[in-house]
Every structure is written in structure tokens, then in C-alpha cells.
């Protein structure tokens, strides 16, 4: 409803594909001689290349070896893409989407999640990754990237310290941490990428899309090199996507974990509480 009112077209793309975007830390699951998609991202961007300007999709995605309190290998993703846009537009979409949910689904604008009271329709807090590292980590962002401690500091020092009385946008990730995002004009050390958090729960990841096929190919190859360094197999390069990327207008896209959003609104801490069948049930 929200996306219809915003004049987005609902699309469907194949779930089983020959190649995902190779990423260092995402494990695709094989399906015969192909893969289940880890995200509908590549096909949705190809639709942007064909001239669609506002599209959205809700579908299942698969990521191997991810099982925890907030992770399950088969989960539900909401993705939306806008051409002639950047991540600022997506951040505004996130604010409007949560306000829409408050107005249509909830009787209150304040919810309680893991003992945090969150006002969902307040203006979101916006914090850059660099300033969060300066403030909470005692380590510079660049240093954490180069010595490999970025993710660990993120979960041990930064995520617990982020404000929780309203949703928060953590933005401008190091360029090394954004395989498909565009460098920020004026500061190429960071990418125009953000994560949406509410009550400490990570809900969505969005960015201004990289639309340079040469740079994108280099990043895919880098991801594969890093995978091989970690003893993981290299993944196939999605050639049709790279071929069409040259004609993609400046665009922005975001992936939101629907199960996580339901967890937030239902006030539950474990993903199996919002999913009827977990891998352990099968």
C-alpha cells in the first residue's frame, strides 16, 4: 500500500539464478547448477536499466551458514529501487515508511523493543560511521578497516552505544565495506551506504548504486580474491548484469528484512518467533 501510494511498481524476478553478486561475507546456496538468490538486487537493477524508475519486491532470499537469534538462512526481504535518486531519498523513504506503518497498523507511535522505548515517527537520528567510531570505539574507522577489526568493533562497541529512543541511520560506510555502492562525492574513502536501526535491531541496508561496470567488475574480483584468501571458493561473475550496468541511470536501492521488522513490531527477540518453520523444524 505504501509503495503503491508512492507510485512504485511491484515486480517479481527469478529466485534461482546463475550468479549472485560475489561478496566476501555472503554465502549463496546452490540449487542444481545454479544458485538461490541472496537478494533480488541484480535483476532489479537490470529493470532500472530497462527504464523502470520505481520498483519494489517482497521475496524470499537465501544465505548459507547464517543462523542466530536474528538470522535464518531463508528469510523474507523487501527491496525497493529508485532511479534518478540517491541514498538521501531512500533515508527519507524509510522515515515515511515507518510513519505509514504507525498510522495504518499501530495504535501508538511508541513501541517497546528489548526494553527500549522507540518513537517510530520521530525524525530519525543520523550518525556517520566515522563519527560513531570516534565517539564510541576509541579507534579510527580507517584503522579498524585495515586491521580487520571493523565488524567486531561494530557489534561490541558501536551497535550497543547507538541511540535507541528513535530509529537511527548509520551512514557513510568505508568504501571497502560496500561492494555495490557509489563513493561519496567529496569523500571517496566512504560509500553512500546506510543501515537503518531501531532499538538496536538492524532493519535495512541501502545505498546509492555504483553504476560504473568497470569499477563494479574490479570489486567483484576483489571480493573473490578475499574469499579465496579465507579459503572460500570464488563465485561466478554475473556478466549480463555487468553488461547492462553501463546504461543504468544514477539510482539507489535498499533491502529491508521483513522478518526483522515484524520482530520489532511484535517485540520479540528471536527470529523463530515470527517464522512458522525454522530449519530445525524441518
Amino acid at each position, binding site marked *: 500500500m505504501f509503495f503503491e501510494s508512492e507510485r512504485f511498481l511491484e515486480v517479481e524476478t527469478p529466485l534461482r539464478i546463475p550468479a549472485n553478486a560475489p*561478496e*566476501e*561475507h*555472503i554465502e549463496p546456496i546452490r540449487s542444481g547448477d545454479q544458485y538461490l538468490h541472496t537478494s533480488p538486487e541484480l535483476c532489479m537493477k537490470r529493470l532500472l536499466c530497462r527504464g523502470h524508475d520505481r520498483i519494489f519486491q517482497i521475496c524470499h532470499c537465501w544465505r548459507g*551458514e*547464517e*543462523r*542466530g*537469534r*536474528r*538470522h535464518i538462512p531463508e528469510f523474507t526481504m523487501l527491496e525497493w529501487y529508485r532511479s534518478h535518486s540517491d541514498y538521501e531519498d531512500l533515508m527519507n523513504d524509510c522515515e515515511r515508511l515507518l510513519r505509514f506503518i504507525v498510522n495504518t497498523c499501530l495504535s501508538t507511535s511508541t513501541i517497546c523493543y528489548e526494553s527500549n522505548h522507540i518513537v517510530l515517527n520521530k525524525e530519525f537520528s543520523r550518525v556517520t560511521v566515522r563519527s560513531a567510531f570516534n565517539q564510541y570505539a576509541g579507534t579510527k574507522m580507517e584503522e579498524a578497516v585495515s586491521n580487520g577489526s*571493523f*565488524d*567486531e568493533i*561494530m*557489534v*561490541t562497541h558501536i*551497535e550497543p552505544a547507538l541511540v535507541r529512543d528513535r530509529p537511527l541511520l548509520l551512514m557513510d560506510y568505508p568504501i571497502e*565495506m*560496500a*561492494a555495490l555502492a557509489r563513493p561519496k562525492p567529496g569523500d571517496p574513502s566512504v560509500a553512500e551506504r546506510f*543501515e537503518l536501526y531501531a532499538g538496536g535491531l*538492524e532493519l535495512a*541496508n541501502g545505498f546509492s548504486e555504483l553504476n560504473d561496470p568497470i569499477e563494479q567488475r574490479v570489486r567483484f574480483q576483489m571480493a573473490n580474491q578475499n574469499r579465496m584468501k*579465507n*579459503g572460500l571458493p570464488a563465485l561466478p561473475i554475473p556478466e549480463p548484469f555487468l553488461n547492462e550496468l553501463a546504461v543504468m541511470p544514477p539510482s539507489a536501492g535498499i533491502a529491508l528484512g521483513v522478518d526483522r521488522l515484524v520482530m520489532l513490531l511484535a517485540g520479540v527477540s528471536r527470529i523463530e518467533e515470527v517464522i512458522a518453520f525454522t530449519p530445525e523444524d524441518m
Partner: protein
Amino acid sequence: MYSVADLKKGLKLTLDGDPYIVIAFDFVKPGKGQALYRTKMRNMINGTILDRTYRSGESFEPASLEDRQMEYLYKEGTHYTFMDQQTYEQVVMEEDAMGDAKNYLLENCKVDVLIYGEKAIGVTLPNFVNLRVIQTDPWAKGDTSGNDSKPATVETGYVLRVPPFIEEGELITIDTRNGEYSTRVKG
């Protein structure tokens, strides 16, 4: 060897030569980042709590622990000697490792002793033990001080609070999980 995929609450593993038990575990993965396995572990010898974060590909040595039914023989200084009932092999445990168990052990009683490698590192007690009261003050009839318990010493030397009606020579049941009086054994 265990891999990070085996990590869960209750897993016992060896770290820096000591046995640890995982007491809390969480899989986390910040957006597009690496999978991290956050654990809280307790050293099974000295009780120290350790927070450790692991990444994919790391592996662990299982802790080779064994519970053996043994008979408690005697205490000498700070050493407690137990004997395996099948092999008659004897092991000695330090008082520190005994923990609260020393309050409830009588010579010749049978308990499970936790063995790590060759070392005895703990005693698993039954939840309830029966011990005889060897000293307690008689119940002063007409005592209006309002005390509904009084100290009593049992045959191991352990002192606990018991109801006023318990007399010297009586057998009582003690809950070993909290060290408190549970009930009087009739007969």
C-alpha cells in the same frame, strides 16, 4: 576438533590448556560484514568468566572431561582423596576445586568426580544430602525473641540455620544447591 558451527550453550572446550564451558552464545553479522560468534565461557577449574568473539574458520579443541563414580576416602591438609570404585585408582583434589562440596562430604560416601585429563576438577553432588546434627542449642520454650531459626553444626562441620525444633542427633536433609535446611528425616 570443533568448528564455530558447533558452538552452543553447554559446549565444553579447551582453551590455553584449561577446560571451559560455553555459558552464553550469540551469532551476529553486522550488515554485509563477517559472521561473528560471540561467546561467554566459564573456566571449569577456577570459575573465571571469559568473553571471546570468534570468526568463521576458527576451530577448538574439545575438553576431554569425564564424570567418574568415586568414593571419598579422607582429607589431609587441603587435599581430598577419592578412589575410583572400579579401578581402585586414587585421585587427590585441592580444596579450592571442591567448592561447597566440602560442606557435605562424609568419608566413604559416593559422588561423581569430574576428571579433566588426569586432574580431578570438581564434584557433582546429589541435590539433597542427609547429615546428622552434632551440635545445636535446645529449643528454649517460651522464647519470645521471634527467631524462627537457630544455628546447627552437622557432622561435616558445616554450620547452617535450622528450625528451632531440631535437636542434637537428628538427621536432616540439606539442599546442596543453596546450602539450606530442607526437611527433618524421621526415624
